[in-house]
């Protein structure tokens, strides 16, 4: 009996405990649901507020852009200083000018519009846009951006100053051409070349960071259409400790056919960098004279396979009978591409040399059974 009573009390306690626990669990669940719902509502409100603000800002931006475009358009087509002043002092223009002086956002937008516009026009229109930039005293704004601690603000200022052809900023931009931030440095280099042409390449005298292949192409693209000036320090750049500067100088010699730097470029054939040696070989082939082939053969054994093949290809155009002695043994090179290049060079020197090739090799065995018919089909220019 006593045992039975004890059993029931125990069961009862267990049920009460379970109920307590489940109520407690339910309360936790309820509170969690409430908290999550609250957070979701707050998030929805935040998103709505953000979208509303963004749309309002977008509309404001579009309105201001339209207003500025009207002003820029009026100024851009002026044909004299008097007309510029007249348009600028018109009540409509003054209204726009007052608008833009209220907030920094407006100034930023106007600078951006002016820079974008100057990219698309030239001649007097571009000069008028520059006039408006100066008249609206936006110089300090860009100068402050140039002194910003954020690299991207600086880079944008550099870009805009170059587009707006602000010569006063050359010194400031030049100081950034060797900046530790690669993107800022690249923008500054392009900007300085945009502003001063070949003279701007003076940053190569002191640059310690490498100039990427891409950046070299951008600089060359920026210089295209301009005639090379006398005061470029190509000789100094060819002796630079920065390999990318040597590469770039060799490319300039090649593109602008600077025969007067032939001897300086030839020194690079003995450079410690195999990449520079290869570029020097290519450069010399573009400004070659009657001694170039002999010079390249002299260095042939110092180079890797790629550069050696380049030399053989150059000999296809610049080779003479005197080079047969060098070329004929290469018909027995273990690498087929060397065999092919040497044979092509021998044949191009004189078509009758085909007999010499055929006499030196086993015509019917591979790879000559493939190379020889191919060679015969190639025209001799």
């Amino acid at each position: 009996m006593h045992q039975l009573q004890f059993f029931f009390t125990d069961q009862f306690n267990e049920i009460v405990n379970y109920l307590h626990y489940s109520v407690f669990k339910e309360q936790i669940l309820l509170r969690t649901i409430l908290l999550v719902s609250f957070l979701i509502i707050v998030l929805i409100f935040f998103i709505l507020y953000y979208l509303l603000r963004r749309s309002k800002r977008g509309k404001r931006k579009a309105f201001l852009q339209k207003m500025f475009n009207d002003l820029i358009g009026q100024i851009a087509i002026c044909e004299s200083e008097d007309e510029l002043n007249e348009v600028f002092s018109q009540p409509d223009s003054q209204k726009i000018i007052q608008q833009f002086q209220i907030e920094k956002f407006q100034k930023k937008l106007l600078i951006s519009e002016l820079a974008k516009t100057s990219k698309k026009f030239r001649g007097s229109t571009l000069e008028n846009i520059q006039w408006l930039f100066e008249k609206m005293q936006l110089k300090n704004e860009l100068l402050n951006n140039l002194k910003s601690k954020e690299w991207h603000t600086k880079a944008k200022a550099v870009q805009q100053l170059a587009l707006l052809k602000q010569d006063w900023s050359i010194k400031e931009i030049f100081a950034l051409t060797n900046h530790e931030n690669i993107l800022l440095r690249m923008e500054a280099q392009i900007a300085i070349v945009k502003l001063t042409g070949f003279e701007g390449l003076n940053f190569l005298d002191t640059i310690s960071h490498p100039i990427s292949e891409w950046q070299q192409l951008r600089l060359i693209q920026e210089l295209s259409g301009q005639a090379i000036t006398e005061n470029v320090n190509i000789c100094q750049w060819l002796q630079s400790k920065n390999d990318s500067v040597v590469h770039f100088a060799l490319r300039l010699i090649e593109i602008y056919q600077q025969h007067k730097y032939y001897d300086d470029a030839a020194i690079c054939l003995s450079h410690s960098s195999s990449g520079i040696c290869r570029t020097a070989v290519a450069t010399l082939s573009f400004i070659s004279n009657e001694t170039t082939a002999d010079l390249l053969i002299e260095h042939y054994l110092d180079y890797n396979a790629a550069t050696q093949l380049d030399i053989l290809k150059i000999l296809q155009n610049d080779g003479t009978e005197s080079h047969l002695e060098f070329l004929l043994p290469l018909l027995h090179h273990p690498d087929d591409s060397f065999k092919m290049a040497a044979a092509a060079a021998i044949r191009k020197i004189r078509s009758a040399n085909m007999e010499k090739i055929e006499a030196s090799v086993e015509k019917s065995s591979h790879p000559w059974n493939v190379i020889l018919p191919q060679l015969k089909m190639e025209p001799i220019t």
Partner: protein
Amino acid sequence: MKILISDDEMIMLKIIELRLKKDGHEVIVTSNGKEAIEQIKLHDPDMIIADIMMPFISGLEIVNMVKQNHLHRNVPIIILSAMGQENVVLEAFNLGADDYITKPFSPNELSMRVKRLAASAGALAKNN
């Protein structure tokens, strides 16, 4: 003269519009190729100035459509584009464009080219 200009850049449209209006022309402005085709049908312009890269219909397609239409095939078209590659320029001329200007450009130069084209188109119409 009634000139239709089509470009998707607002500032470009604005400056060209103001420049041509200053020369005394009537200007119809459109910001995409589709709108340009609609306005050409509606207004019968005397000259068309169009960019190549535009939404919906490109400038080259406009040239093609206009030059194949017997009503508008004599309307001179100037292409104004940032694309200066030889193949693009040649394609524009092959399709029937009368002039090609690469950006960046001078609005004064455009104005002169419009005058020259208008004069030669006028002379041609007189001869016919």
